[in-house]
């Protein structure tokens, strides 16, 4: 830590010495965050021999295996972001302005905090116990309602099943983000709308929704990114049989599927790009909402 004499004290100083205080942090960020990321970027533009090439990037858009994995990842992220977003919003609505007792709110928020972090191997096992072939709900549906979900085409280890599992950490995240935004809806707006003769539907369509919409869309984008980067849950559930981008990259690290490392780097860069775009969209929309909900 740089020692600065008390006399030139507490004004932000332009002296280069003040920057010494943040050197450890920047050194850490460079070594373990920026360097690994940039290594992938540069390597995705080079052949194994080190010459410059655009081939890897081109293959990203032409190689069917890669294109399909991106399509699959985007599909599952979009489906779970939409589903989790809508359901999470309704749930957040129910405990904020939906008229439920106040105590339920803190219960739900705590639970959401846990569930949004409950991903990976344990989550996959929990759903196998619930909706697997021998699962609890599967058995209940079969024995009581005489409905064999597996015979009627459902499969936990498929796209639909994986989406259902992802929803377990998607909608609590939506609850966590949307609850404060719904709190921001001012009582006066509703009263003013009712004084002017608006009914509930009109209030929601004309007043609340326009204010909340950027926040809802932004949160859904965040959910999209959340699902897009997930790896362990899908791998534990399907053992890598569903070819998400993360699974393909994992296979590339293990080195048993792809033989072209440049392509692996390019896939990683493509992922980072998509994540960066979605996070930028999130922060832009969030900033738009904050104007109203303070």
């Amino acid at each position, binding site marked *: 830590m740089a020692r600065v004499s008390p006399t030139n004290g*507490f004004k932000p100083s332009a002296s280069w010495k003040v920057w010494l205080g*943040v050197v*450890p942090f920047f050194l850490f960020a460079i070594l373990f965050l920026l360097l690994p990321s940039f290594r992938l970027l540069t390597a995705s533009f080079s052949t194994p021999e080190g010459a410059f090439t655009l081939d890897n990037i081109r293959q990203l858009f032409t190689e069917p295996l890669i294109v399909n994995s991106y399509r699959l990842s985007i599909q599952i992220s979009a489906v779970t972001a939409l589903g989790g977003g809508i359901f999470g919003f309704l749930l957040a609505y129910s405990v904020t302005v939906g008229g439920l007792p106040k105590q339920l709110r803190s219960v739900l928020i705590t639970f959401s905090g846990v569930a949004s972090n409950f991903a990976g*191997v344990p989550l996959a096992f929990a759903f196998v*116990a619930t909706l697997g072939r021998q699962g609890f709900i599967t058995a209940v549906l079969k024995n009581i309602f005489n409905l064999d979900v597996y015979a009627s085409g459902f499969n936990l280890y498929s796209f639909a099943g994986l989406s259902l599992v992802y929803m377990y950490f998607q909608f609590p995240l939506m609850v966590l983000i949307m609850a404060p935004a719904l709190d921001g809806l001012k009582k006066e707006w509703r009263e003013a709308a009712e004084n002017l003769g608006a009914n509930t539907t009109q209030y929601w369509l004309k007043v609340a929704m326009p204010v909340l919409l950027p926040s809802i869309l932004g949160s859904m984008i965040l959910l999209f990114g959340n699902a897009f980067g997930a790896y362990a849950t899908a791998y534990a559930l399907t053992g890598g049989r569903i070819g998400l981008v993360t699974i393909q990259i994992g296979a590339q690290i293990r080195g048993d599927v792809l033989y072209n490392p440049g392509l692996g780097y390019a896939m990683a860069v493509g992922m980072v790009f998509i994540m960066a775009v979605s996070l930028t969209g999130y922060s832009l929309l969030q900033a738009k909402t904050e104007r109203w909900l303070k």
Partner: protein
Amino acid sequence: MSFLSRLRRFPFWGWFWFILGVLYFVLPLYATVAFSLSWDPADPFKAYERSFGDGRFWDSFLLSNTLALTTIFASIALVVPTAYWIRLKLPQARRIVEFLTLMPFVVPAIILVFGMIRIYSQPFTIPFTDIVFMQPLTQFKAGTNIMIVAGYMVLSMPYMYRSVDTGMRTVDIRTLTEAAQSLGASWFTIITHIILPNIRSALLSGALLTFAIVVGEVVLASFLGVQAFGPYLFLLGQHRAYEPAALSFVSFLLTWVAMGLIQLVTGGQEQTVGAH
């Protein structure tokens, strides 16, 4: 009439969504517990006894806890002085540091570990010479441990930095620093004896989040070949049926305890702020 108006005011949709949500939350957990207890009707806790009786469980669990604690202390040592320094002397660096701490949201764990392995599986050489400065980190145990702790620090950075920064907002670090300096305290004393105690609830909430992230993490541990709890649970799941369910429930409870403590701690913090 009064019954009808009560019915009209009854928040039907509120309850409907809430109950649906609770079912979604609870049913998988219930199924997991029920399954883990169903191994042997004569001895319902057989799966738990077997899991806890396995030495590899304790090894991996202890290792994950050690890694979590190391990560927490290293993160605090890195983040607190940085956040403090930025508030006090370097507000112009705030944006870039905040940007860096949010980067882990953009770079998923699988990409991070991919990049780290590619970089640190080659020996460091002094530029323009063939002199090997350090062996590849992936080739010896301490090196792998450094990498995994650093990776966990990156993953928990967004949460840790935000908690610490929010914690510092509530105390007047400038006045505290001036007072300490006029009494002759060194920077080290100021940070360890003045700043840290004043933001302890923020530190605790950051630490517990880090703990919840690290215990049970799979991607970094399995790709770096560290025998942590996450990979152990994954392997167990491929060979056994009942023990993984038992351990999944245990790990869920652990996360829950951590989150409950955060609620308790941050809730308490808000109260003290309100009481002033």
